């Protein structure tokens, strides 16, 4: 028997059952693999990133995108691409356009439809400010600027206290 999608011999015989209807498919190994691949998109962030990047980007555009950095946590798109992990919640805002096409590849969807927090979410501006201050504190410590670091720490404490976080 010949494969229904190409000229090769059919070695896979698949019966699809949907709502009680039976549909028989006769496919060669290659077409069967193609057919049986998950339809929801790429399984891992690595696969999704690979697909995502191969879509018509010049190396110049790539290099420019790689340098784009989140003003809050400082992560570059390159670092995200390399390790597959984001740096802070604000990345979802800062890299929204890039992440959108990536997320479509992974989930096939662009909007959350599930549970929402039982109480109203915190002020996002205060949250990002706190993350930014934590990074500045680290930079101050790394630069042995301990006086500045202790000032930043006090600001963090104040903000945390105000927001009862």
């Amino acid at each position, binding site marked *: 028997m010949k494969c229904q999608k190409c000229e090769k011999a059919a070695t896979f015989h698949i019966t699809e059952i949907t709502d009680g209807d039976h549909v028989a498919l006769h496919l060669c190994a290659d077409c069967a693999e193609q057919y049986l691949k998950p339809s*929801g998109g790429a399984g891992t962030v690595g696969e999704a990133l690979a697909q995502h990047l191969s879509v018509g980007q010049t190396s110049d555009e790539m290099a420019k995108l790689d340098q784009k950095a989140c003003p809050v946590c400082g992560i570059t798109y390159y670092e995200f691409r390399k390790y597959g992990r984001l740096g802070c*919640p604000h990345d979802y*805002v800062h890299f929204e356009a890039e992440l959108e096409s990536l997320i479509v590849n992974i*989930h096939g*969807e662009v909007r959350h*439809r599930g549970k929402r927090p039982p109480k109203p979410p915190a002020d996002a501006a205060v949250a990002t400010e706190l993350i930014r201050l934590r*990074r500045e504190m680290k930079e101050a410590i790394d630069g042995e600027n301990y006086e500045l670091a202790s000032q930043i720490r006090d600001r963090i404490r104040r903000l945390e206290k105000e927001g009862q976080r």
Partner: protein
Amino acid sequence: MNLDELSQQTCEWLRAEGPDSDIVVSTRIRLARNLSDFPFIRRCTDIDRAGIESLVLRRLELRPEFAGLQRIDVESLDELDRRFLVERQLISRELAEAEGARSLLLEPNERLAVMINEEDHLRLQVMKSGLQIAEAWQSIDRWDNLLQEVLQVAFHDRWGYLTACPTNVGTGLRVSVMVHLPALVQTRQIERVFKSLQKISLAVRGLFGEGSQAMGDFYQISNQLTLGRSEAELLEQVGEVVPALIDYERKARDFLIASAREELTEQVRTALKTLRKSNRISSEETMHLLSKLRMGVHLKLNDELDIPLINRLFLQTQPAHLQKLRGGPLGSDERNRARAEYLQAALAGLGEGTT
């Protein structure tokens, strides 16, 4: 919490209770959550990690519901104890092998486990014996609500709960059902079943082994997508394939019994004999043989053994559990000997009449 005490009890997922527990070993749901005021783990300094941990612990003290949880400071555990927790499925390998401040909050019955500072700041897990998706969701949803009463978590109107990896964004939910499918493996139908599951975006992983290689014919079926569907829809997607899977496995077992009863009985007898008489035995071979016994008991090919005993052996012959029982680290060859001795003692006197 004293881990030595823990090592004496059977963990929740091996209790062999609950619906369809001959095939469905356990149901597990996890939720990924992050605090809104801290960078994700990848960009955390040591100070941030310690800050997250202490904030979470402090905040949970505000609710009496959390008072029963025990905290295990994973950072201060030795390697053996960490691997022991991994074998009980209470922490991930990633948490075991990470560095810096990190903890496990655990209900003494091991049903709720909260990892602090894993890939996300918080990973909640609820485990139930047998097929209990709705019950597990009810429980974890309640814990999650309590948690969000006292902690601000990162949430975005469009993207939902924000996670370090975009593969978890939205609901942050992963439901996994662990199934024991020896007959589908033996009748070589397992690959076909998996391909059809992958086609509807469900992931299949072998338990214990790396990648798709399953030890002891245990597999985990879980959702891959987390965004754009409600929690109820995600749970249903997994929930509705499991009965079909159970049905396939039962049919394969019936087929084996009808067509190869003698051979199967012989396999069970040989497996028991090998487990009882070996002087050295690897973890892999033990799992393989215990899987045969487990199916044999369910098919009533052996009336001396019972499932609680077999489940206990599955767990206690894992490398870290074995070493805990022996009181300290053992080399690979010593482990294989210790495992054989343990099995000899546990199965003493069994299978005598049938050899």
